[in-house]
């Protein structure tokens, strides 16, 4: 019951935050220099289409009415028409969302698990060579400049060795061929995903490793570890069953906190690899002054951050029964 109450409270908080973001974005798009009409309506449209869109977005109304229209349009999924693609923005971002979620969640989960696993080992060998090298390696990977790492990986594994495709998510010849089955398509996407995934993984696992290591070292000083030792349990059991689950909790929290940061990195990765996700769409929209698309992509990314934060909170509550709300 308690946890339901907690989720409900967080949901309300998230809703309020989202509402504020929505409002700030509205104000920014209206107050920025230039005419909001030219910003939201494609200048190459026919006058009738333009008039229709202006009426739909309420751009001919006073500003407070525009705000109402804006909210109504938002909740009915009407974000206007993309300048570049010429179709409804909503369908574009809906189309890109799964690709982002696929790449992003795989990379976060993979780096968190590997980071926790390696951090556990590093803490167990504290002061030894294994620990020094792991810590140093984690530090270096963590501070690599993401787009550069992406370019280097493409250069080495895509261009020089040729193991992986240079960019994109699918090979058209496989997807257009009606005879190729699910597994072939699956393998094709996986093949394209290796390098972007490796980029995000290398950047992220280091911080989880370092955090897990120090958290593990703290946990090992606790009394119940001493008790476990006194009971004569093997070191392996103590490490994996007594210390690690508790030590992993701060890592879960940090996944939540670093999400916003990682999404920026996600946008860079998607852009360099031409991965058809929301982040790349946002960068593209901003570069080409495609304002409706930029606005919607940004809102969607904010939504993704907020929802993932909620997921992390709930996960935390589930993992740590000591927590009281």
């Amino acid at each position, binding site marked *: 019951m308690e946890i339901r109450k907690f989720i409900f409270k967080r949901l309300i908080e998230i809703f309020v935050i989202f509402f504020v973001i929505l409002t700030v*974005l509205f104000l920014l798009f209206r107050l920025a220099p230039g005419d909001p009409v030219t910003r939201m309506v494609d200048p190459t449209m026919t006058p009738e289409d333009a008039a229709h869109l202006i009426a739909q977005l309420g751009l001919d109304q006073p500003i407070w009415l525009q705000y109402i229209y804006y909210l109504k349009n938002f909740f009915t999924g009407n974000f206007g028409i993309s300048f570049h693609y010429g179709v409804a923005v909503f369908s574009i971002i809906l189309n890109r969302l799964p690709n982002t979620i696929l790449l992003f969640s795989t990379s976060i989960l993979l780096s968190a698990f590997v980071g926790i696993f390696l951090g556990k080992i590093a803490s167990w060998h504290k002061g030894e060579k294994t620990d020094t090298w792991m810590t140093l390696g984690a530090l270096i990977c963590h501070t690599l400049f993401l787009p550069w790492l992406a370019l280097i990986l493409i250069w080495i594994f895509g261009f020089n060795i040729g193991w992986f495709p240079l960019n994109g998510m699918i090979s058209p010849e496989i997807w257009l061929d009606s005879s190729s089955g699910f597994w072939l398509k699956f393998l094709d996407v996986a093949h394209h995903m290796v390098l972007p995934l490796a980029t995000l993984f290398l950047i992220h696992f280091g911080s989880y490793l370092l955090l897990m290591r*120090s958290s593990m070292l703290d946990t090992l000083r606790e009394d119940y570890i001493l008790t476990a030792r006194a009971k004569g349990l093997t070191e392996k059991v103590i490490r994996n069953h007594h210390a690690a689950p508790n030590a992993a909790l701060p890592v879960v929290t940090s996944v939540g906190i670093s999400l*916003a940061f990682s999404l920026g990195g996600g946008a860079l990765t998607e852009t360099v690899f031409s991965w058809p996700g929301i982040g790349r769409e946002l960068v593209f929209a901003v570069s080409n002054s495609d304002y409706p698309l930029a606005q919607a992509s940004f809102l969607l990314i904010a939504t993704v951050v907020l929802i993932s934060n909620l997921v992390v909170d709930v996960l935390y509550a589930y993992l740590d029964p000591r927590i009281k709300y």
Partner: protein
Amino acid sequence: MVERFLEGWSVYKENLIGKIGLTLLVIFALMALCSFFPPMIDPMYHPMTGVDPNISHSTSPSWRHWLGTDFIGRDILCQLLAGARIAFMVGISAAFMSILLGTVIGMIAGYSGKIVDTLLMRLADMIMVMPTLLVVLILSSLFGQLNIWTIVLLIALFRWPGVSRVIRAQTLSLKERPFIEAAKVAGASHFRVIFRHIMPNVLPLSLLYMTFRVTSAIIIEAALAFLGFGDPSTVSWGMMLQWVWKTGHMFQAPYWLLPPGICISLLTLSFYMLGRAMEEVLDPRLRKEIAQE
């Protein structure tokens, strides 16, 4: 004060990671200083406008150009040196401003409590969930090309919440201590209590956070420049990478692709190492709260 510093220094210099970090940092600082000399030798060594008259495409390293030239014949080494200057400038000024904001807001929130505290911390939560890079991207699309100081300011405005949380927690525990009570009884104003009595005690923590903020500021500026939203009148490392990438030289010109990326990575690494070493000097118990970015 000096004694405390010397004591800290004696702990610090035992730290391997700290020593590596500081050495790297000194090298980069020297690079930034050296950036003033090449344009004086010959105008063709100017990082932005200097073009070698004999070269019109990217060339590999030679005696005349130690690291080669870019696509219009500008010297890569000179750009690299100038980039170090920009990185320091952006990193340190953005970090300083965000730390200033974070410290003041954190102290005020912690000290006043109640509604002010709630409001400020909710604001912090809100800003914390925004991806800074993407927010700055959106703003630059709305307000046109941003100059380097606007970018610095925006980074500072969006990077204070993490600091303010820690400073607030510290202030909460400080304000219960007897010496604060004593100051109040002696008639000190709230302003004086905050800035005269609380601030000196949270300052080391702010300083520690500053090293981590330098790292994130440099990365954000580089990423913006890489995506093509940097200040067009400056030569930053991110800008150099954008040129390699956008002009399609990344497969042909490793001498051009490698140096800027290595520099960004090493500089952020050195600040990060500095921070981690300082952390151990200041307080081993703080370890958990920091490595989160």
